């Protein structure tokens, strides 16, 4: 199932420390950040702050709260950079995982008690609304294109879970589907996305 050609294996583990004079990639930058390099942090900020903020806005919605959460996330990136392990995934994934988690925590802690009752009644966010563009990006176009290649149900489940910040249990409730069908749809959908985007595992 995990088609992996030998070339991927060599690329799978990026060099932790960039070569002298070489343009450091994100993973390398994060290693420098872990050593307390503030200018490396600024470079990471330049590359990821927009995506972190955008993702948090998607989940949290409220601009002021989103900014607060984004600041917390970026500070956490600085503070915990030594915990980043390039062998476990890319730097962008590490940062976006923190951003998504913090966004969800914000949404759930503020509304933990009230929202549970609300949830079922709340209208689902439009599933095809991928991003309100500020700048056109190739990346965004490809993601949109690959999302379009999913079945309606796969797309809906993935966007509700990721952009809506709902747990798969809540997604199942919202869509009136069983837990195992949501698990399957999300996994199948992401695998299809992976192949479409040409992401190597």
């Amino acid at each position, binding site marked *: 199932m995990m088609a992996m050609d030998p070339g991927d294996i060599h690329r799978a583990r990026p060099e932790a420390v960039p070569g002298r004079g070489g343009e450091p990639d994100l993973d390398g930058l994060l290693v420098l950040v872990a050593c307390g390099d503030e200018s490396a942090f600024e470079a990471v900020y330049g590359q990821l702050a927009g*995506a972190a903020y*955008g993702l948090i806005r998607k989940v949290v919605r409220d601009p002021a709260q989103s*900014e607060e959460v984004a600041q917390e996330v970026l500070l956490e990136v600085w503070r915990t950079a030594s915990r980043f392990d390039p062998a476990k995934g890319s730097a*962008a*994934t590490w940062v976006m995982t923190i951003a*998504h988690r913090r966004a969800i925590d914000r949404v759930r802690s503020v509304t933990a008690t009230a929202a549970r009752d609300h949830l079922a009644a709340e209208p689902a966010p439009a599933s095809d609304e991928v991003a309100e563009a500020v700048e056109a990006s190739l990346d965004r176009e490809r*993601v949109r294109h690959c999302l379009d290649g999913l079945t309606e149900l796969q797309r809906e489940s993935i966007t509700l879970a*990721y952009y809506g910040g709902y747990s798969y249990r809540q997604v199942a409730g919202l869509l009136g589907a069983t837990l195992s069908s949501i698990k399957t749809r999300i996994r199948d959908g992401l695998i299809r996305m992976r192949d479409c985007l040409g992401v190597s595992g």
Partner: protein
Amino acid sequence: MKLLRHDLHLLSGVYALDAIDSDLERDRYQRHLARCHNCSAEVRGLQEVTTRLAMATALQPPPAMHGKVLAAVRRTRQLPPAADSQPRRRPWWGWLGGRSRWLPRFALAAAMVGVGAAVVLGVILAGTQHRLDLAQAQNRAIARVLAAPDARVLTSSTSAGGTATVIVSPSERELIVTTAGLRPLPASKVYQAWLINPRRTRPAGLLPAPRGGKTQPLLTTGVSTGDKLGLTVEPAGGTAKPTTTPILVIPLRA
């Protein structure tokens, strides 16, 4: 068994999307990932896909954010690398080695054991006194909350099973939490209490390890109007911010 395994494999997608809200289920899957190489490779790939979903949402952050974050960075100390990723050091007795003969080394080691025992005993005694003082102070504080004329008792069930009982006194700005029947945690985890309000979430102490399914009262001070009490599962020692979904949130409104 087969069905169970099959079901676990299906979790890769929702795990990659961070859409599992049960700590139990997430922990179980993480343990599975540690053993299943194919699964962890699959999750890595799917996580890269979710990262692309994230990157596709990029917006221009508010211009002021840049300065605020950098200012915060300048006054924030970083975490040292995790202990388990540090290179293995010589054992602490390593320096005893070298060229000295066996007997002096033994004598030195024996002397060290003696000194060490004395130090340990002293620390234990001091610690016991300290704990007694603490316990007395805590008992007085608990009595104060219980005796407050505005003390109220709130009880709620938690999503980790069992119930939590809170006695809160708005005038004393203090509360006491006890629990019964919460899911037992491994030694690496702890239940942590939080004071939550829309502005910020503050750590409010760690629940003591349960005895007979019940926890000793935890006292929390500095409660303000509008606060809610939350409980989360955190790594042993607690964290500065909650890292998991609360198993309980109780509004404390007077």
